[in-house]
Structures are given as C-alpha cells and as structure tokens.
C-alpha cells in the first residue's frame, strides 16, 4: 500500500505532463494538416514583362517553391474573346505580359508574405505581384496561437513535473538509503545500489505511458463524438496513433530516467 502510494506520487505529475504532450501533438497535427491544406490552395500571382527563368526562383523568404505554373495566354484571352475583334485579340496576344502562379511548399505567415513580395519585385521584369494578403487565413493564425500556447503550457508542466518527480525520487533514495549504503560498503556501483529506485521509476513511467496511451487511443477512436463533423471535413484530425504513442513512450522513459540520473548524480556528489 505504501509502495503504491509512493508510485502514485510519481505517476500523477508524469501522467499530467504526458497528457499535455499528447494535446500538443494533437494540435500540431491539426495545424500541420490545416497548413498543408491551405498551402495547396494558396498561390501568388506574378505578372512579368518577359518570361521568368523558373530555375532561378527556387526559394522566397526561406520558403521553398513547390512549383511555378505559367498561365496560358490563350486561356486568359478566351475569357474576353466575346467582346473583342480578331485584330484586337492578335494585338492583345502580342502585348499581354506573362502570368505565373507560384505555389509554395509551406504556407507563409503575413511577414513572410511581405518579404516574398519584396523579393519578387526585385526582379526587374516583374510588373505586379498579387499575394492576396487580405485573404490570408485568420483561422490558421488562430491555430498557430493555440499551438504556441499549448507548447508553453507543456513546457511549464514539464518543468513542474520534473521537479515533483525529482522530489519523489529523492524520497525513494531516502527510504532506501540504508540498503544503498550496505550495497556500497560491499563495493556495488551507485547504479547497482540504486536498482530498486530505478525499477520504481521505470515501472512508474510504464504505468503513466499505459494510462496516456489508453486515453489517446480512446480519443482517436471517438473523434466524431468529441469534435463536430464540420471540423473533420476541413482537416484530418485523426492521429497517426503508432507514431504518436512511440513519441509519448520515449518522452515518458526519457523524463523518468534523466530525472533519476540527475538525482543519482547529486547523490553521488554528496556521498562519494
């Protein structure tokens, strides 16, 4: 009972931290998915007096160019054909500048968008650049803000969790102090002597992982109940559960073991 209670004090902060991490993973997935979706729909229109050398335009404001599509002059003219004479069409064809649609690999922020506009305008032949800044997605910005807030909350909870876990490990060291001292008198290394404490921490990490894994699977299987179907039409909110579970498992073990080693190091400094 006493042992369960002490493991519980270890599991609670670790589980809280892992749940926050799982929420962070979830929002990251939603934001990335949404970003991909809007970046596929988004393009910059460039008007140039001479044809652009596409190979020279590989990156703007640090964002790679996915592709550059040349808009067919005939298509542009065909939209106005009805109102123009053949002569005018011929003249227009000669005078019409070149139109391009630039698709980027990543959806740019507003500042990146302004930077892209400046870089494009530096090309002498470019007459006009339309970045559609008014349409720039506000939902995306909102999602980014939420993601950042969750990241900050995660870091804060991580720090608190590490402090509480370290305190619990110190309590375990205190509880097993006599046993550790006896082992060390017999020439055991600190790692061997602290075996019980290390096993407690690994067991705690596994329990925390199992709890969070169960919650994540439950959430992933019941997204339609929790989130409105409209949202699911906009973005794919399903997690790649195996990959995310691996991340949670690694974090759980990493935090437990690194905290143990931190406490062990301090213990060794104080006792050697």
């Amino acid at each position, binding site marked *: 009972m006493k042992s369960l209670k002490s493991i519980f004090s270890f599991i609670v902060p670790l589980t809280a931290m892992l749940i926050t991490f799982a929420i962070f993973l979830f929002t990251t997935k939603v934001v990335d998915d949404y970003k991909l979706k809007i970046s596929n729909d988004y393009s910059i229109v460039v008007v140039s007096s001479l044809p652009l050398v596409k190979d020279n335009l590989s990156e703007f404001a640090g964002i790679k160019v996915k592709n550059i599509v040349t808009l067919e002059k005939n298509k542009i003219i065909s939209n106005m054909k009805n109102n123009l004479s053949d002569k005018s069409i011929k003249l227009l064809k000669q005078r019409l500048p070149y139109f391009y649609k630039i698709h980027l690999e990543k959806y740019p922020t507003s500042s990146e968008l302004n930077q892209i506009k400046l870089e494009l305008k530096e090309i002498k032949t470019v007459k006009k650049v339309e970045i559609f800044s008014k349409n720039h997605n506000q939902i995306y910005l909102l999602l980014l803000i939420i993601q950042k807030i969750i990241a900050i909350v995660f870091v804060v909870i991580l720090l608190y969790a590490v402090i509480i876990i370290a305190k619990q490990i110190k309590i375990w060291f205190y509880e097993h102090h*006599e*046993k550790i*001292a*006896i*082992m*060390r*008198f*017999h*020439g*055991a*290394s600190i790692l*061997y002597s602290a075996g019980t404490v290390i096993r407690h921490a690994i067991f705690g990490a596994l329990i925390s992982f199992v709890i969070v894994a169960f919650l994540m699977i439950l959430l992933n299987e019941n997204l339609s109940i929790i989130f409105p179907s409209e949202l699911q039409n906009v973005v794919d909110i399903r997690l790649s559960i195996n990959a995310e579970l691996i991340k949670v498992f690694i974090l759980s073990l990493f935090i437990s073991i690194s905290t143990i080693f931190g406490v062990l190091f301090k213990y*060794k400094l104080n006792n*050697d």
Partner: protein
Amino acid sequence: MITAREIYLSYDKNRFIIKKGSLHIREKEFIFIGGNSGSGKSTLIKSLYGDIGLKHGELFVDGQKMKGISASNLRKLRRDIGIIFQDYKLINEWTIEENIMLPLKINGYSSDISRKQALNLLSHVKLSHRKGYKPNELSGGEQQRVAVARALAHNPKIIIADEPTGNLDDYSAEVVWNLLKGANEQLGITVVVVTHRVPKNFGIKFRQLSIEDGIIYEVS
C-alpha cells in the same frame, strides 16, 4: 596487507580521533584492536574500507593508497573486503539467503552459484532451516551469524569486524569466533577485529593492538 603511517582521522576539523597512528598488518594475520569506548577503534577500521577519509598521513590497504582513492578503486577494494558491523547491517526486505548472496552478486557471480554458496554458508552458521526468513524475524545472535556468513561469502582477502560479538549470547559468540578463526586458518584471510574483550583460550595465533587517546599501541 595494511600499512598506516602517522595517520590522523577526524569527523571535524578541531578534534582528531586518531592521532599520528601507525600500524602494519601482514597478510593472513589475525588482529584484535582493543581500547575503551570512544577511543577511536571503530573510526580506525572505518578508514580501512574508506568510510572515513584521512586528514594526514598515509594508509595502504591491499596495496591501495587510501588518501584520494578514486570511487572506482574504492569499489574494487571493497569487493575484496568482508565487513561485519556491530549493528549487522542486513537488508530487512530481503531473506537471509539473499543477504548472503549480495557480495557474490556484486562480484559478478551468477544467481545459481551465489545461491549454492549462500546455502553452504547458512549450514556453517547453523541457520539452514531459516533460509527464507527475513533478518528482523531472527534474534540478534542469528542476525550476526548471517552477517558473518555474508562477510565470508565471496572469499575476501580481508575481513574487518566491528565488535562482532558485542551484543551476542555465548553460543552465537562462539559460532562467530569459530567462523573467523576458520576463515583465517583455513582460507588464509587477514582478519581485523575491533573488540572490548579478547576471548580467552582463543586457540590460534593473533596479535593485539590497543588505542588510547587516539594513539595506537602494540599490546602483544
């Protein structure tokens, strides 16, 4: 095997427990260290297994210089020493069999070999019938016999014992002395024992040192 040259030991800066202490213990010797309570006997033997550091002087144990000894060298040295504490220092959550197996496991022996050796020693200390018991289920005398068995388990080069019979009944004390004599005579283990009273008619050759006011004297 153990050489001390003008060593000073203390727990604080102002008061030395051992002052200018010198001694030389040869291999396979049986040594008793006597003296009044508080004379520094326990402090002296603690320095032999590195539980207390030297303030001044030189101390060599099994060829290892104790002043400034590294943690890894201290671990190696301790693996060659069997220590018997006055308060037994057994691990209460383990069975007595597991307690005896401890030094063997630390020295890298397999569980099977460690268990066989533990059972063998339990029969020597006449506690085979209690192998599954935990230390706090045994009397003080029985616990000390387990502690002696543990100290002998890995066939150490040196056994250091701090008042091993101080709290024991006559029967347990006799078992402990017989085991220590056997270890010295038959296995050639160097034995250093701190005790208030040297047993009469001990039966084997031994040397006696005494500590008074922090100074080590040769008695016999």
